[in-house]
C-alpha cells in the first residue's frame, strides 16, 4: 500500500543523494550493450519497412511502396483480424481456466489440487511446438489417436484439428499453464485478512471471493491477460502447424511466409507486418497503464496465512474433474501420442513398434549435431540472459546515475516485439553491421538472438527478488568492515544466487524449445532440435519428429527432476540448520520479518 511504495523507492532515493554524478565505465558499457542488443533490432525493424534492398546489401534505397503495398492488401488485414481473434479468444478462455485453477489450488480442498503446479511447470517447460506437433498428430485423419478414438465411439470424426477450433484449443492448453503460474504468486500473496474482514462483515466465502479477492487481484489478472495477448499475437508455431494447412493466416505466419516462401524475400512486407504487431502491443501497454497506472493491490503480510480451505461439498469434484481433463488434454494425450508415434516405423501404423527412430535420430550426424547445438545454446543463452538480467536489475536499483534506468527500459522495449518479429529485427540489426554479418547462419547468431530473446524473462525473474533484498544488508556488511567488493559478492550476490539459478533454468528451457529464432536465423548445418523436428514433420517423417522431440522432452524432464532434487536437498539442509523457520520457505531466502 502507500507506505510500502515509499519503502521500495527509498533505496534509490538514498543512493541518488549519496551517489556520484557521472556514470561509471561499467554503466556506460551496460547502456551501450542494452541499446545495441535490445533497442537496435526494434529500430532496424522500422528501418527495414522502408528499405527496398535486403539487409546487408547496399547501397540503401528507400521507398514507402513496400510499406503502403502491404498495408493496402486486404490479405494483410485479414491476417491481422485473424491474429486478434486467435489471441483474444485464447486469452479469454485460458485466463478463465487459469483463474479457476489458481482458485481451486489456493482456496479449495478439491482432491488432486496438489498436482496442478507440477503439471503447469511441466507444460510450461515443454515448447509450444510440441503441443502443436502432437495435436496435429493426434487429430491426423485417419490415424491420430484422438481421431481413431472418436471414430470408434461415434463412427465419424467430427474433429478437424487443423482449424480455428484446433488452433484456439491448443493455444489455450499452453497459455493456461503459463497464466496459472503467473497468477499463483498473487493468489498466494493476497493478504488473507482481506478475506477475513469480508467474512466478519457478513459475506460468505464464495461471495468474499467474487466481491473482494477477485477485484483485489484484478490488476494481476489484467496484467497476465495483456501479457498473454501480446504473446498470443506473436505465436508462430500453433498457427503454422494447425492454421496454415486450413488456409488460416495470422500475422506471424504471414511474416514467416513473406520472409521464407517468396523469392526474393519480401523484407519490407515482413517488416511492415512486424510493425503492425508492435503497434498493437504498444496500444495494449498504453491501455494497461491508463487503466491501472502502476497499481498493484497485492500485499504480503508478515503473518503466515493459516486460512482454512473452502468447503464446497460436492462442487469440489468439479475442480478435480477440470484438473483431470486439463491434464489429459495438455499432457497425457500429447505425450502418449508422441511416445507411441516415436515407436512406429511409419506414422499411423500401430504394429511393428521399435526403437529404430531413436537410433536414427541419435546416430544421424545432422540430428545428433542438433542436440549438441541445442544444449550449447540453451545453457549459454540462459546463462548470458541471466547475467544480463542481474546486471541490469542491480544497476537500476543500486546505481546513482541518471542513466541507471536506461538498460531496464531497453529490455521493456523487447516486449513489444514478440516471437518472430524479434527474429526479423535481429536479422536486420546484425546483417547491417559489417562485423556481425559474418556471424550469419552460424550457431553464434542463434545464440546471441536467444540471449536477447530470453533476457526479458530473466529480467522479470530476477528484478523482483533483487528489489526485496534490503540495501541495509549490504550497508551492515560495510559497517561491519567489509569492502564494497566484498559486501557485494559475499552478501548481495550470495542472496541473488538462488534467483539467478532459477532464471538460468527457465531461460535455458525456453531457449531449448524456441522455434521462432532458429527458424529465421539458423542454417541447415546448425539447426536446433525444435527446428529439426519441425522440418522432419514438414517432410512427412512424423515418427522421427516424435522421436526427436521425445529425446528433448526427456532431457528437459531430467533437468526439472534434477532441479527439484537440488531444491529438496537444500531445503532439508536449511531445515536442519533452523528447524521450523517459516521464513526459509520464502523464495530465495529473502529477508523479511515474520511471526
Amino acid at each position, binding site marked *: 500500500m*502507500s507506505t*510500502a511504495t515509499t519503502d*521500495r523507492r527509498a533505496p534509490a532515493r538514498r543512493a541518488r543523494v549519496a551517489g556520484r554524478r557521472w556514470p561509471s565505465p561499467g554503466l556506460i558499457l551496460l547502456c551501450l550493450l542494452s541499446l545495441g542488443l535490445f533497442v537496435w533490432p526494434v529500430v532496424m525493424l522500422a528501418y527495414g519497412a522502408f528499405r527496398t534492398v535486403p539487409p546487408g546489401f547496399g547501397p540503401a534505397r528507400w521507398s514507402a511502396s513496400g510499406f503502403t503495398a502491404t498495408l493496402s492488401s486486404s490479405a494483410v488485414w485479414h491476417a491481422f483480424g485473424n491474429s486478434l481473434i486467435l489471441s483474444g479468444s485464447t486469452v479469454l478462455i485460458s485466463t478463465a481456466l487459469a483463474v479457476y485453477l489458481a482458485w481451486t489450488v489456493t482456496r479449495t480442498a478439491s482432491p488432486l489440487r496438489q498436482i496442478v503446479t507440477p503439471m503447469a511447470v511441466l507444460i510450461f517447460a515443454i515448447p509450444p511446438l510440441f503441443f502443436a506437433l502432437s495435436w496435429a498428430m493426434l487429430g491426423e485423419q485417419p490415424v491420430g489417436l484422438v481421431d481413431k478414438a472418436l471414430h470408434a465411439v461415434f463412427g465419424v470424426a467430427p474433429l478437424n484439428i487443423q482449424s480455428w477450433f484446433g488452433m484456439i484449443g491448443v493455444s489455450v492448453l499452453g497459455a493456461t499453464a503459463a497464466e496459472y503460474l503467473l497468477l499463483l504468486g498473487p493468489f498466494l500473496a493476497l*493478504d488473507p485478512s482481506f478475506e477475513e474482514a469480508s467474512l*466478519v462483515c457478513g459475506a460468505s466465502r464464495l461471495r468474499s471471493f467474487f466481491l473482494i479477492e477477485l477485484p483485489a487481484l484484478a490488476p494481476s489478472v489484467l*496484467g497476465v491477460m495483456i501479457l498473454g495477448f501480446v504473446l498470443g499475437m506473436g505465436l508462430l508455431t500453433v498457427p503454422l502447424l494447425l492454421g496454415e494447412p486450413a488456409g488460416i493466416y495470422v500475422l506471424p505466419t504471414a511474416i514467416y511466409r513473406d520472409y521464407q516462401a517468396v523469392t526474393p524475400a519480401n523484407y519490407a512486407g515482413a517488416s511492415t507486418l512486424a510493425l503492425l504487431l508492435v503497434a498493437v502491443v504498444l496500444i495494449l501497454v498504453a491501455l*494497461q497503464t491508463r487503466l491501472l497506472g502502476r497499481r498493484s493491490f497485492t500485499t504480503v*503480510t508478515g503473518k503466515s496465512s493459516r486460512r482454512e480451505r473452502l468447503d464446497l461439498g460436492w462442487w469440489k469434484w468439479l475442480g478435480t474433474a477440470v484438473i483431470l481433463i486439463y491434464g489429459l488434454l495438455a499432457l497425457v494425450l500429447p505425450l502418449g501420442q508422441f511416445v507411441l508415434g516415436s515407436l512406429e516405423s511409419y506414422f499411423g501404423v500401430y504394429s511393428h513398434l521399435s526403437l529404430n527412430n531413436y537410433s536414427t535420430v541419435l546416430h544421424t550426424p545432422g540430428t545428433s549435431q542438433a542436440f549438441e547445438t541445442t544444449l550449447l545454446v540453451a545453457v549459454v543463452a540462459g546463462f548470458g540472459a541471466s547475467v544480463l538480467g542481474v546486471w541490469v536489475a542491480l544497476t537500476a536499483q543500486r546505481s546513482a546515475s541518471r542513466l541507471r534506468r536506461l538498460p531496464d527500459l531497453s529490455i521493456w522495449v523487447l516486449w513489444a516485439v514478440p516471437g518472430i518479429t524479434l527474429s526479423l529485427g535481429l536479422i536486420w540489426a546484425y546483417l547491417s553491421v559489417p562485423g556481425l554479418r559474418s556471424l550469419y547462419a552460424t550457431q553464434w547468431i542463434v545464440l546471441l538472438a536467444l540471449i536477447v530473446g530470453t533476457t526479458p524473462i530473466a529480467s522479470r525473474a530476477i528484478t523482483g527478488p533483487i528489489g526485496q533484498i534490503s540495501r541495509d544488508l549490504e550497508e551492515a556488511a560495510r559497517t561491519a568492515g567489509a569492502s564494497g567488493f566484498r559486501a557485494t559478492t559475499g552478501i548481495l550476490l550470495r542472496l541473488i544466487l538462488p534467483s539467478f539459478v532459477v532464471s538460468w533454468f527457465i531461460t535455458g528451457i525456453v531457449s531449448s524449445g524456441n522455434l521462432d529464432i532458429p527458424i529465421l536465423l539458423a542454417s541447415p548445418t546448425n539447426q536446433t532440435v525444435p527446428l529439426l523436428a519441425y522440418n522432419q514433420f514438414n517432410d512427412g517423417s512424423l515418427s522421427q519428429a516424435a522421436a526427436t522431440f521425445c529425446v528433448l522432452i526427456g532431457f528437459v524432464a531430467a533437468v526439472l527432476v534434477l532441479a527439484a532434487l537440488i531444491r529438496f536437498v537444500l531445503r532439508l539442509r536449511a531445515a536442519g540448520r533452523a528447524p521450523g523457520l517459516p521464513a526459509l520457505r520464502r523464495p530465495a531466502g529473502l529477508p523479511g520479518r515474520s511471526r
Partner: protein
Amino acid sequence: MSAVELVGLRKSYADVAVLDDFSLRVNQGELVTLLGPSGCGKTTTLRCIAGLERSERGEIRIGERLVACPERGVFLPPNRRDIGMVFQSYALWPHMTVFANVAYPLRVRRRDRRERNRRVMEILDMVGMDRYADRSVTQLSGGQQQRVALARAMVARPAVLLFDEPLSNLDAKLRRSMRREIRDAHDRSGATSIYVTHDQEEAITLSDRVVVIRAGTIQQVGTPKEIYTAPATRFVADFIGFENLLTATVTEARDGSTAVKLKSGAGPVWTSKGITRAPGTEVVLAARADELEIGSLGSPGAPCDAPAAAIPGVIRSRSYAGGRVEYLVEVDGAPVVVRAPDAGAASSLLDVGSDAWVGFPADAAVLVDDDNAEPAPQAAEPAVESVPVQGST
C-alpha cells in the same frame, strides 16, 4: 446485544496447545481486554470467537447462540456470527473507496440503498471521515485508515466488536487519541467488545476488565485498578510494570498485614496489599520503582537517615529519567530500580558506588505468588509489514 462466553476452549497448532481449557465470560456491553505477550494465545482466542479459527474443544456462545462446539459438531462461519472486527493491518480493501469499504457490511446484509447511504455517512461522520468518503483507502494515513476500519466494523451495529491490536501500527500520540475514540465508539454502540493488546497501558486505560493471559491460560481477570495495584502472580506483576520483584519469606502476619524478610535476612517489610500467607511461605515482594524511597547510608560514623523498614544496598548506576532520577541499587545480590524525585541540586544526588538504603513505605509493595515466571518480554510484537510484490505484467 449479547454476552460472549467461552467454556473450556482448546486450540493447538502442530500438537502445541495455544489455548488450553480457556474459559471466560464477557458481559453484555462490557469492554474486556485480552492482555499478554506475543504468542500467548490472545489473538487466537479472538479469532476463535470470530470464527476465523476453529477451536478443537469447548464452547463459544454469543448471546443465546452456541456458535462453536466441536464436540457437538457446531460451527457457525464468521459471516453468520453478527460481529464486527478491526484488524491489526486494518485489512481495508484497496480496490474500494472509503465509502464502499464501510458500506460493504450493509451491502452483504442486503440493506436498502437509501438506508445504507444514510447509515454509512452517519458512521463516517462519527469517526470524522465523512469528508474522505470518495477517497481511495490507499490514499489515507495510518490513523485515517484506522478510523475507516473502525467505521466498517461498527456500521452494521453488530452485537460483538472484536479488536485485534488495532493501534499497534500507529505512533504513540495518535495511539492515545485513537484509544479514546475507540472507547467512545464502544460506549455509544452498546456492543460487547473484546480487545486484544500487548500494551499494558492501553489495557489499563481502555477497558472495563482486563484478562491477563500467559501461554494459553488465564493468569488474572480484574478491573484495571485491581490488575494495576494488586497483581495476583509474579508474571502479572512483571507484565503490568512492576520493575522490582524480590523473592521473600513471610515472617509474621497480623491484622491483615504481612511482614516479609528478603533472602539475605534484610527486613522486615510490612504490607497489607496482595496475598496473605502463613509464616514460612515463600512469596514475591513486588514494588514499583516510583513508590520506593532511597537515601544515603553515609560514611561510617555519619548520621544515618534510614527509616526502620529500609534495606541496605550499593548504588550501581544513576540516570536521569525526566523529572526523576533512576538508581539501580544492588540489594541482596539482586538489582532494585528506584526512581526518586529529582531535587534539582547536584549535591542531593547519590553517587555511584556509594552505600544507600532502599525504603519500602507502608503499602508500597505488593505480595504476589511466585509462579516461576520468566520475565515477560519487553519488546513489542513486530508490526505487520506490508510490502508490495512485483505486479505481474
